[in-house]
């Protein structure tokens, strides 16, 4: 078979895929609307846009019990209430009554200034604040504790109006400041790298493996194999079709991220598109292998769900690869998506040139070659079984 015929067959397959896609309203909605929209909007709503900032503790109702009633404790109250982090501080006069309110959703923490607070500061001893928290709210105790500690560490009882604290001062230890350098990224910019990859992985796996499962169910796959079109052309045709969809998805996610939530990637669009397509092609390879295993449509969807969960644990989405140990680290190091997320972060966040990420790129390209070759062999070997 000549190369021209091979390519012509592949284009025919791609064209057929497009025709089917155009006629399937729910496929269009899921691939190009629901998945990009749900992930981007939910992340943007939860974390705020890249250009906005908010203090997570600002509006949490917190009780404040002053058992010291001195100038120092009054200044601490004023410092906290004037800060951008404690807008909802509620003064209470009875420690036990305030603590009893915890768990009722009326307040989520109580800051108690114990008796002798000012004396301890005047005598050069370490003063204490006691923070009672409702730890049934995940993350809230930690957040209030670290924010309050920042103010406590920098509190000077001799100053009537405490200067506003920078983020840096809030994180520093009294006596030795810690000056942080290196770009700090808005959480939406960080999230954009994850959303882009997750949307591609979710959609592409479903389109390739799920699409072939649907064709098998409908009997069109058997007819396709009975035609003189080789399996290589079928794979290439479907790949071309999905690459175009992936380009559209990249535009949609980036468009929503940049124009809807103010994301500012540190690299050019071409680099992001190239990486996004590499992630998509890596997923296609896995999708073709899954398709060769004769999975049903529903099984494909459920595997997609577990694949994403798996990636959350092992590919550096929640925990960096270098923090994992033992078998978790081995799995993480073998996953091509670990390198994809790394490359996306290095380019989108740090602005590194794509070609400087040689190891990440090499690994992903090698994975693509191996997975496509494996899928070709499996689809070829199981062709009878797949149409049975």
């Amino acid at each position, binding site marked *: 078979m000549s190369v021209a015929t091979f390519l012509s067959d592949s284009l025919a397959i791609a064209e057929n895929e497009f025709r089917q896609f155009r006629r399937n309203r729910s496929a269009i909605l899921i691939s190009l609307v629901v998945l990009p929209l749900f992930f981007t909007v939910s992340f943007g709503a939860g974390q705020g846009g890249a250009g906005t900032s908010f203090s997570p503790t600002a509006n949490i109702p917190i009780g404040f019990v002053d058992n010291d009633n001195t100038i120092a404790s009054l200044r601490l109250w004023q410092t906290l209430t004037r800060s951008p982090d404690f807008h909802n501080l509620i003064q209470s006069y009875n420690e036990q009554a305030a603590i009893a309110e915890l768990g009722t959703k009326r307040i989520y923490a109580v800051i108690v200034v114990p008796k002798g607070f000012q004396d301890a500061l005047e005598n050069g001893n370490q003063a204490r604040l006691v923070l009672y928290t409702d730890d049934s709210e995940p993350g809230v105790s930690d957040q209030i504790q670290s924010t309050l500690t920042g103010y406590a560490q920098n509190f000077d009882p001799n100053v009537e109006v405490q200067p506003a604290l920078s983020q840096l001062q809030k994180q520093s230890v009294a006596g030795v400041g810690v*000056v942080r350098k290196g770009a700090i990224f808005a959480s939406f910019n960080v999230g954009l790298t994850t959303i882009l990859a997750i949307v591609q992985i979710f959609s592409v796996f479903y389109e390739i493996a799920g699409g072939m499962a649907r064709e098998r169910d409908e009997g069109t796959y058997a007819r396709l194999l009975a035609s003189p079109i080789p399996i290589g052309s079928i794979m290439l045709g479907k790949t071309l079709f999905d690459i175009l969809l992936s380009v559209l998805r990249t535009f949609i996610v980036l468009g929503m991220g940049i124009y809807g939530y103010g994301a500012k990637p540190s690299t050019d669009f071409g680099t992001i598109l190239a990486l996004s397509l590499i992630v998509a092609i890596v997923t296609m390879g896995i999708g073709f292998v899954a398709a060769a295993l004769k999975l049903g449509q529903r099984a494909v969807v459920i595997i997609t769900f577990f694949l994403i969960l798996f990636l959350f644990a092992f590919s550096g989405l929640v*925990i960096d690869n270098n923090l994992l140990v033992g078998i978790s680290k081995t799995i993480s190091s073998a996953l091509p998506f670990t390198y994809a997320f790394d490359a996306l972060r290095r380019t989108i966040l740090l602005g590194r040139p794509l070609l400087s990420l040689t190891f990440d790129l090499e690994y992903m390209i090698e994975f693509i070659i191996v997975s496509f070759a494996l899928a070709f062999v499996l689809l070829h070997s199981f062709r009878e079984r797949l149409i049975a």
Partner: protein
Amino acid sequence: MKELKQLRRDPVSLILTVMFPIILIGIFIVIVAAFSATTHNVPVVVADLDGTPASDAMLNELTRSRFIHVTQLVQTEDQAYQAVNNAQAVGAIIIPQGFGKALLAGDAFVIVSTDNSKLTSSQFVVGAVNQGAQDLVNQVTSGEGGINFGLKIAPIEVITRTMTGRPPSGDPILPGFLGLIAILGGFDDIVNAINRERERGTFPRLTLSPVSLFAVYSGKMSATIVLTILRTALMLVIFSLYGLVIHGNLILIFLTTVLIAIFTFSLGLTISTRIRSTATLTVLEIAMTFPLFSLAGTVNSPLLLAPGGQAIADSLPWTYGNDALRRLIYLGAGPNAIVGDLLILFVSSLILMPIAILLSKRTI
């Protein structure tokens, strides 16, 4: 009974019902194990530009850290930054010239430059430097090891006491996972109960039988209730094996997960009147589930979300279900504390069920 019999005959669905909780908990354990590991070796480089006993002491604190590993001592600030830029290290720590003198005056500082594309490792570096600085301050103020620079002490210490006595960063997401299992189970049940019957053509036959549509849906919902009770029991056993102490009334926990599942089932029923394909419905439901991780209080409290996210969280009945589960499991709350949450779930289901029946009648 018919639904449970069908499930028993479908090994794939049966395995999934059991596997969902186990896989979710497995992933949780991997994540928690990595976060709570007692040692890490996050690579850092250090440039000591001061070369005094004080900077030596700081360097000692850094090399003793259980979380960072000083891979290289460099001569200049630029070399340190270069190591981070070239991805040879996650962090560069600079002890500036004059550190010793500044320590005497109580205004010393160190510079930390981190590769913040490594989200968690960079936090470990900053945490280790803060800890090192704190330990140095403690040494200096107590005159340990013959070091005494007359340093100002940290004026105020914050002591945290949680309601349950757990550390502030205890395992806060397990109840959220129980809620998530109830949601996923409810969605899975609706796919099994309605869409598969539609695809096989048995659903119209069922509706033509002398049984009302309400009775059909109620029957299918009863199967979901039984399955949710089984899933909840399995999750509670896993929690117990994991060492989680359940303070609340078990019946209330089961009631909460059942109400979450009923609401999810009712929503799924409404969606299934418009989306007929099993695979499409499953994709849609899974796509809906991921945002719930952040918006419905599964992983983090909705109190910590941005204002827009809080508004969405407040409008989701699942948020109230997760909230009730946390209060029950961690605080041992009684019925009075969670009745509002349960009512929201119940009323939301009551609103959705007639809508689903009405839409179903139009589309059979």
